[in-house]
């Protein structure tokens, strides 16, 4: 499963090649939501804010992007029941988002059980 996921992420990074755009990808693994970010140029953002919102666009938490362009947080089944919207804004003024639907979360949870 991890190999497949890694391959998917690599293809996805390669496919989305808009000039100097912030790319955001999030997935669930072993009860943890993992957010990865990267610029389309290949550079890693060194700072930024990650907002996690629910299906009603209520902010559940705000986290700081780590120096490797990632951030992780534990999946709260109650708060994520209707999906999560992950918004990332970097210090360089770029922003983007990733949507995790209930199906995405349930599938990942099932696969890692």
């Amino acid at each position: 499963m991890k190999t497949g996921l890694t391959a998917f992420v690599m293809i996805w990074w390669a496919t989305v090649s808009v000039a100097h755009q912030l790319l955001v990808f999030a997935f669930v693994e072993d009860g943890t939501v993992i957010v990865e970010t990267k610029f389309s140029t290949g550079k890693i953002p060194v700072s930024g804010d990650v907002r996690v919102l629910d299906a009603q666009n209520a902010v559940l938490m705000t986290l700081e992007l780590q120096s490797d362009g990632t951030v992780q947080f534990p999946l709260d089944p109650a708060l994520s029941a209707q999906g999560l919207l992950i918004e990332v804004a970097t210090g360089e003024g770029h922003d983007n988002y990733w949507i995790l639907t209930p199906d995405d979360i349930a599938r990942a949870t099932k696969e890692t059980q």
Partner: protein
Amino acid sequence: MSQGRLTRRTMIRLTLTGASLPLSGHAFAQDEGPVIAVANYPLAYFAERLVGDLAEVLFPVPPGTDPSFWRPSIADISAMQAAQVIALNGAGFSDWTTKVSLPRARIIDTSAGFADAYIATETITHSHGEAGTHSHTGTASYTWLDFGLAARQADALAARLIRAMPQSEATISTNLLALNADLAALDAAAKALRAPLAATASHPRYQYFGRAYGLEISAMEWDAQEEVSEDQWQALEQKISESGATLFIWEATPSDDARARIATLGLTDVVFPPLAQAPASGDFISEMTKSITMIAQSLDA
């Protein structure tokens, strides 16, 4: 197929799907028949022509929102994930597809078969309207404005629908013939335009139309429904002097003042909605016919 019909159907679908979250989307679709999710109005129109009442067409982008830069909600994507077929335009049309996970086996990129005919553009980042800042990426994406390419998109969609609904192959094949006849008529009408001709458009939408039908179309970066600034008018005058354009194409109806100002520059203007979003009245064929007729009349005037 009017905007109202699409919107009603879409709203019902989204409301029910949202109410049934988190995981019953597939069950809902199975109970109620196949769902075909689409990324823009041309594909919604093609899908409805192809399947008639055999399936539901889900076009979740609200009226007034540009589907190219639509930001879906979680419920929108859940509904898309539950669809049996997800029809994308390709050519970089839907920015949101790079921000969500969609079941690859159910996706049909309707323009992939002619990817070698995509038109490359410069990347431009700008903002207008309520959509905020956005970029026109390096590929022109309004492929359906070349009606020959639109027919190929309809072919690709029909083939995928037949795979999903093999019991309906005869109906879909018959409907495809009728749809392609209408698209061929549009293609013939556009080819009859008195081209070559230089034109300028209010927004960079018409690359495929220009290439297919012999129009050299340069473009401004205007929102037709916003007031045009003096700087923008000066930029247009500069562009006209460089291109020799005699026709100005608005993608949406502008103010009377803006049309009057265009006339003072010696340009004939027409409103030619590219129909990424559903028209307020009429459908893809009737509205495209109207636009082509208006261009033809303006050239003959």
